[in-house]
């Protein structure tokens, strides 16, 4: 069996950790080939070839894939599909945009967000914002899967020496159904939310964008990424891409600290795989406490500065 994994990377030539998790999942199903599509790929091919567990890197270096638009990228994957039993993408915004389009082209029902592989046809995936886990079996002879990064440990960045093959025929490259206009990237020097060891998130209880400074100061002490609830994002306290939950990012850090977040199921959907969860909330009945390992009942405006100071003193 051979599996094709779509490589998700950031501009600046950094392979996203979620791609490495997808590769780990793929190695459970067969030999792994990765598809690197884009333009001006720099040293990404070498990086991909070095990933542990990868047998072959296919490169599609063409203007049409510069922004990984769904239409040309799905056509490209469809053109390669005959050689593969399974096609996997990381379950991030990019993978979720592209994979179902491939599924439509191949007339296959995709399986999104898998968190466990039972056998080559049977997978576990969360439904109802993660309150229910469903074991599903696909009867399609080709499988199209998106993989939750938090459910599989990322494969090592070193150790592999995969063969590199440059594709010369570019399916879909002539199609221009959509045109890229602009990318607005939120700059941050902090670790990436989805792969950070520690995440601290603020909710509606933070009251304002300015108050997020209190979170930032604690994050500095812990080298943490900063997240937020949907309420905090909608209120404009912080950027949209910081949202954690059913419709935001899925995180699984060693330590997750929820500050002024009530613990709605849609938020919990994004943090369930965290190793340790801490809740800081003034309402002792807030549901977040039941989903936490440790909690402090109290005013976050008193607790956060103490936390910052005492973490500093620990060092």
């Amino acid at each position, binding site marked *: 069996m051979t599996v094709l994994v779509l490589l998700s990377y950031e501009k600046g030539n950094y392979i996203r950790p979620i791609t490495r998790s997808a590769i780990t999942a793929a190695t459970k199903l067969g030999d792994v080939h990765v598809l690197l599509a884009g333009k001006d790929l720099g040293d990404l091919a070498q990086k991909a070839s070095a990933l542990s567990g990868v047998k072959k890197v296919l490169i599609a270096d063409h203007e049409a894939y510069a922004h990984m638009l769904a239409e040309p990228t799905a056509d490209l994957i469809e053109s390669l599909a005959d050689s593969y039993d399974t096609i996997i993408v990381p379950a991030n915004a990019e993978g979720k945009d592209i994979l179902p389009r491939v*599924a439509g082209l191949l007339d296959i029902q995709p399986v*999104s*967000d898998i968190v466990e592989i039972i056998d080559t046809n049977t997978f576990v995936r969360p439904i109802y914002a993660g309150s229910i886990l469903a074991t599903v079996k696909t009867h399609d002879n080709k499988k199209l899967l998106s993989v939750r990064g938090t459910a599989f440990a990322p494969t090592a960045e070193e150790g592999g020496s995969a063969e590199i093959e440059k594709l010369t025929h570019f399916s879909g490259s002539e199609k221009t159904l959509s045109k*890229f206009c602009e990318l*607005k990237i939120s700059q941050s020097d902090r670790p990436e939310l989805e792969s950070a060891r520690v995440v601290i998130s603020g909710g509606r209880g933070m009251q304002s964008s300015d108050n997020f400074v209190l979170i930032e100061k604690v994050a500095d002490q812990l080298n943490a990424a900063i997240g937020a609830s949907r309420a905090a994002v*909608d209120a404009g306290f912080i950027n*949209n891409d910081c949202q954690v939950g059913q419709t935001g990012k899925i995180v699984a850090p060693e330590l997750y600290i929820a500050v002024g977040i009530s613990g709605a199921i*849609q938020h919990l959907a994004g943090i369930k795989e965290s190793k340790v969860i801490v809740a800081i909330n003034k309402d002792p009945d807030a549901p977040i406490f039941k989903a*936490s390992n440790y909690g402090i009942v109290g005013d976050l405006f008193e607790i956060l500065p103490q936390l910052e100071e005492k973490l500093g003193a620990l060092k």
Partner: protein
Amino acid sequence: MKVIVPVKRVVDSNIKPLVKSDGSGIEINGVKMSMNPFDETAVEEAVQLKEKNIVTEIIVISIGEIKCQDILRTAMAMGADRGILVTTDQAVESLSVAKILKHFVEKEKPDFVLMGKQASDDDMNATGQILAAKLGWAQGTFISKLELSEGKAKVTREIDDGQEILELTLPAVLTTDLRLNEPRYASLPNIMKARKKPLETVALTDLGIDLKNSLEIVSIKEFSSSRESIIVDSVDALLDKLKNEAKVI
């Protein structure tokens, strides 16, 4: 412009779903059902576009049991013009839904289809993209902003590290992020008016579409959290636990 907005009837997202005692599915008996919140956002956007005279007709479509009429009426009370209900007792997966929608797109010839990016029950996030592929149309997924002009849609998409702006050639399939708008509550007079709007009902079996479900649900179980929920009374006590018990700092 003419728009089709597909809507799904789901367990209300404020309710914690429970597995039936025999494990065969989710308990929906006596449980509050609502329109999928992502679809509500799509209906709202279509209605706002109609209020701006950009959209002239909004058709809402639902697939499922006869009870799905209630969410079609809700959508019409929000401002949709007419509804189509495709009745079936079978569960239909994303691929089948896309094929059914394609049938109506070909019949109604809308300028675009606007739909929720996912349903809050199965969280599959696939139908819009599959439909776009089957139609050979452009797709704009997870959109938080939409501007329409002659033959074009400019969309802002919520992506992994920020936002992306694309210009799509119409016709296209657009899927909504919740940030696109704040859906309205239908007013009582509008609820009354919606009762008189046309609602066509067709049986899925009469459409002559060849459908099969390829995803079998083997079992389902409730996620259970096994966390201790220890409440500590000071920051010092918390740090002590994190350092010496959990060993995460």
